[in-house]
């Protein structure tokens, strides 16, 4: 199953902020984590992730720092800020509303029951 592009784009911000809320991280690790949590269903590209990180940095939701890892290599770590946490809370509230509404619709309509069961099966 492929998640539609618009949905991926819309959900990317809360996902990145959510992962960074767990602790500072860097691009590759964030991508791995998303892949892992979605069971390989969400396959983000670098072209999605890095510009998004840069936008969040411009908006002040995250801040970055270069840290040296083995040898000559430097790695850009991202950390969530106070405004980022606020933004995450706000996004979460909105997403809860969306998800709750969808659940209401789908769970209360018997004709959709089988379909919902399928969807839940995939998600879990």
């Amino acid at each position, binding site marked *: 199953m492929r998640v539609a592009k618009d949905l991926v784009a819309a959900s990317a911000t809360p996902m990145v902020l959510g992962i960074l809320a767990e602790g500072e991280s860097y*691009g*590759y690790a964030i991508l791995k984590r998303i892949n892992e949590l979605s069971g390989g269903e969400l396959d983000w590209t670098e072209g999605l992730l890095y*510009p*998004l990180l*840069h936008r969040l940095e411009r908006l002040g939701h995250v801040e970055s720092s270069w840290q040296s890892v083995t040898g000559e290599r430097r*790695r850009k770590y991202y950390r969530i800020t106070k405004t980022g946490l606020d933004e995450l809370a706000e996004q979460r509230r909105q997403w809860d509303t969306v998800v709750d509404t969808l659940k209401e619709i789908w769970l209360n309509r018997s004709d959709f029951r089988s379909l919902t069961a399928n969807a839940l099966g995939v998600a879990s």
Partner: protein
Amino acid sequence: MTAPDKNDELEAQFAQWRQYVQRRHPLQTSDAEELEDHLRGSVDELIALGLRPDEAFLVAVKRMGSLDDLSREFAREHSDRLWKQLVLTGETDSPVAETRSRRDMLAMIICAAGAVVSVKAPQLFGLTFDDDGAFYARNFSLFALPWLAAFLAWRRRASPALIGVLVGLFALGAVAANIYPLAEDSQSIVVSSIHLPIALWLVVGLAYVADDLRSSRRRMDFIRFTGEWFIYFVLMGLGGGVLMAFMFGTFQAIGIDPETFVSEWLLPGGVVAAVVVAGWLVEAKQSVVENIAPVLTRLFTPLFTAVMLAFLVTLGLRGRGIDVEREALILFDLLLVVVLFLLLYSISARDPLAPPGLFDRLQLALVVSALVIDVLVLLEITGRITGYGTTPNKAAALGENVILLANLAWSAWLLLGFLRRRTPFTALERWQTGYLPVYAVWAWIVVLVFPPVFRYL
């Protein structure tokens, strides 16, 4: 990854990849580094899964997807980067470039300060702008251009021999400007005040092409430099005008008249410093910003062609000769200069290998119509010069006309040959760059030889 040569191979592949990435404008060095770290993470993981390093690299690059898509995504977030920025201080990506640009800036500041000091120095000997205007008019280019040449020679690491030649030529200019007993209202003083800057500008050109004096490419670069320098200089002049207007307005509002400061310091110092700063800007911005002179050329070539053709048609219909006033020859000289510049700057931006197109035809029409007009003017004027005797003004204007006419006539011939695919485009380029010394020689003749020949008229 244990074998060192395997590792080297992988590093070489990374280096190559980095080069590809850095060629994309929306991707900056820091982005390249971040993406490289990503790629390395991916490669390490694949190696851990049992792939050979080169296989792992290929797979990892493939996974990252095409750089086109990637840079398009980056451009969407960083749209400002598509507007290439001219970074003047710091913030350049590599430390080497940063020290270089900082040193350039320091040298520029020293040279600009030197120019300001030299324009003010004569006041120590009692020469004021008000009373000795003629002295400053004659010498103005000598205050600024040697400093610009010094900046360029420093930047090019010119050889001691060339530096000697530059110093000698500027000294010669200083001698020529001041040795002759010319009256303040004489024609010769006007003529040499116009020609000395031209002669000295070509000396600056010598400093500019210091690394390869005979190269046609370098001379073309100097022509490009001249155009861009001029545009920057004019823009700074406009900015300076606004600055002065505000200075007058604000200080007069508190009852202080800043006129002395402006006319004694800000204006003369600003002009000579701007000469150096404009040169530095052109050097610093090379390849960062699109050149403006060729763009203007593109806009104005059709317009000038239309005006000149209309002029010729009207002239033919009315059936009357050109009414040649005293200044007419100078006006038509200037017209030829404009046509020459239109030609030069479109050459400077043209791909020499591109096949002839509509614009080249337009250019031929421009040059030919300018030539026809000029020949008509020359026929009209020769009788008058022989009738009234020659003056420095007339002789200089006539000489320039002949030089420009020769240049444009041969250019038209070469353009025609190019349009008929007989001669390559580079022939035209080489002709123009090879012609530069002719202007220099003529300007020096006017400055050095004219005053004694015309008995300091």
